[in-house]
């Protein structure tokens, strides 16, 4: 299948008329109802909208964790819908870095082990144990946790845990980072730190798509996409305030 003509080389994400429908008994729930979205390389996009607006569903589809019921998703010119299980895993492993509201670190492992994990699952360009640790240590140092390598998640603060999660998302050098309410469980000081790190990454060329419902957080992004009832209702900096007002 050929990529659409309008897709230029700079687009990291292209979503075309994506629908996601859940059939729960008699009720048909349309989580996504015809979404179109382009994200170009180097953008920092905040996705806003009230609960149930479909932003998390969209994130899961972007993260190749979920499939749309209809429509197409191109990641760097490749049709994700056409991919096999193995390729999807490779996509999540090397091309997308995912961070979550609840951090999702493995509790029984140290920070270092958690950060090493994506390299363990890498299929191409594998590196040995020693190199993996070197890379993981460098990643943890880059988020300011060089002195917390052997701490387990329950020995770290929320902000520190999220920084470990960011280090983990970075070790395979993805071109796209997806953040699902990354500051939702953090105090404002930690939130600022995390946003600082994300902005830094963005300046280094990593494309970021972030779900949030806090205007303070959204203002770090240069583009705000507002969703409602499974549709994009506004796109652009101006939409942020609108989105929040509607929410009220």
């Amino acid at each position: 299948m050929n990529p659409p003509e309008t897709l230029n080389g700079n687009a990291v994400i292209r979503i075309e008329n994506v629908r996601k429908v859940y059939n729960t008994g008699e009720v048909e729930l349309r989580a996504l109802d015809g979404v179109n979205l382009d994200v170009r390389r180097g953008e920092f996009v905040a996705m806003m909208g009230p609960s149930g607006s479909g932003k998390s569903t969209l994130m899961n589809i972007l993260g190749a964790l979920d499939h749309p019921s209809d429509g197409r998703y191109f990641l760097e010119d490749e049709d994700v819908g056409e991919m096999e299980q193995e390729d999807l895993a490779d996509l999540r492993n090397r091309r997308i870095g995912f961070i979550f509201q609840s951090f999702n670190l493995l509790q029984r492992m140290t920070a270092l082990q958690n950060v090493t994990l994506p390299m363990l699952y890498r299929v191409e360009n594998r590196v040995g144990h020693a190199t993996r640790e070197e890379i993981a240590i460098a990643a943890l140092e880059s988020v300011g946790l060089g002195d917390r390598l052997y701490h387990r998640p329950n020995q770290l603060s929320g902000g520190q845990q999220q920084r470990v999660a960011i280090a983990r998302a970075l070790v395979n050098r993805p071109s796209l980072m997806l953040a699902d309410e990354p500051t939702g469980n953090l105090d404002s000081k930690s939130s600022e730190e995390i946003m600082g790190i994300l902005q830094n990454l963005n300046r280094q060329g990593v494309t970021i798509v972030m779900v949030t419902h806090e205007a303070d957080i959204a203002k770090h992004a240069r583009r705000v996409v507002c969703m409602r009832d499974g549709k994009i209702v506004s796109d652009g900096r101006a939409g942020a305030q609108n989105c929040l007002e509607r929410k009220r």
Partner: protein
Amino acid sequence: MNIFEAMGLAWEALIQNKLRSFLTTLGVIIGVAAVILMIAISAGAEAVIAEQINALGANLVIVTATRGTPGRPPSLVYDDALAISKEVKGLTGVAAEQTVASQVIKWGTVNFETALLGTTPDFAKVRETPLETGRFFTQTDLDRKNKVIILGSKVAKDLFGETNPVDQEVLLGTTRLTVIGVLKPKGKVADTDYDDRVYIPLTVVYQRYLTQAMQLNRVRTIYAQVENKETMDSTLAQIKALLARQHAVPLDKPDFVVQTQQDIIQTQQATTETFRTLLAWVAAVSLLVGGIGIMNIMLVSVTERTREIGVRVSIGARPIDVRMQFLMEAIILSLFGGIVGVTGGVGGAWLFNETGAMRTEIVPWSLALAFASSALVGVFFGFFPANKAANLDPIEALRHE
């Protein structure tokens, strides 16, 4: 992820919950130990039988009396042995044997209790009990009721140490006897220690060690050695006919049993066969139960770690990676069970043997068999839970609390 990395992940998960891992593998430990013990015990039982057969001597016909009834004791007598010796053709030797309660044997100040057997001159030949030194008693000794004695090797050693026992006088019970020979060591077979017993002429037993008139002349067993194996059947028939005539009983209702070594071998083999089949089932069932135990815990573990699986998938674990990790956990559990079970089985078999509780022989291939089946149990029972883990929906898994 390569296989060693998968093993590493599995190992980390298992040591996280040491007690549970151990309890999970306990079933396999018991199963594997049971397999090894079962085979060791069967092999031991077979070895005992082989030794018993060897200890009997070759081409032997064994005549025993059936159990006596009140007022009518077992009916086999010394005269039966004499009759067989005289009338049955193709025999190279006939010996009669009577056992008596064990007696205290004494030489100088040394004394202890030992088993006593009264017999006839051919015993040495038909039962293949060669002499170390001296001679066996003769028909003359028997006829004259000479007070002579032949010692088993252990008795001779314990009683005389370095002294040559031949021509020495010993006291057996209340009777003085002259030692005329010492037997070569023959070893212990089942419950019989052939070296810890003494032999005296059957007639002396009647004269000095049996007091009840009823017992006089009675023998426990008659051994007849057949010259040629091919004539065994006709010899058996002759002996049966002769004894029926002697005892005035019908042939189809004899008060004696005539057996060959072959009969004894077959009876005992049938017994061990049943025994072995039973043990094999016990071992197989406990391995199966052990495997189900592993599957059960692995299923629980997959449910408990649903979120962990979701996280792994979200950072790029392929289904095969997840499957490999859980399969490895099951395999490591089973292999650990295999190792501990092999150790336990070998140790148990050794202990049985050492303490004399049961004769066992550890069979090397049984270790390989038990170990291989434990690995197989791991793969077989680990596969279903591992598959369940690999097929989890990542979003559901990530939402799992």
